[in-house]
């Protein structure tokens, strides 16, 4: 979790970042990996569509998605 947060902080300098492990909400789901939720408020999202903002977050965690992260819920706002 700490490493994932660090990656996000590195990718979105100066952003307000919240990261929660919501895996307990998905018990019984036979998935490997964590369910995470992140809320990111970042200046660099300005002028970008929602799709682009979410892609930026997905790209920052590309290596983890599908591995230790099973599902990532994203909420982005412009700081």
């Amino acid at each position, binding site marked *: 979790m700490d490493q994932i947060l660090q990656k996000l902080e590195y990718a979105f300098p100066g952003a307000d970042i919240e990261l929660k492990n919501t895996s307990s909400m*998905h018990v019984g789901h036979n998935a490997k990996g964590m369910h995470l939720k992140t809320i990111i408020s970042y200046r660099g999202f300005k002028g970008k569509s*929602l799709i682009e903002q*979410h892609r930026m977050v*997905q790209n920052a965690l590309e290596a983890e998605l*599908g591995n230790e992260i099973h599902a*990532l819920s994203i909420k982005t706002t412009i700081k």
Partner: protein
Amino acid sequence: MTDDQKTLVENMINSDRVFLMLKGTPEMPRCGFSARVVEILNGTGASYGSFNVFDDYNIMNMIKEYSNWPTTPQLYVDGKLVGGCDIVEELATSGELEKILTPAEKE
């Protein structure tokens, strides 16, 4: 991704104006995020086509590559990716989804 694969995906997502790639079916979604998008779409009364990615893992991989979007569900309108569950939820809350789903007036 080959041209044939691209054509296959494009034909699929353009088969309906509103098209949902999901895990499971609209009647029986097999993932919480897919279920949420189905619930929202059904709430709008929009008609839509759909494909269950569990029916063909090749298509699941193709669609992710085609759209540069790593997860399903994926909602398409007029062949364009609108987003996954989070974005659909956000657009539904802001009222924008209804505008996107309403066809533009024909001239």
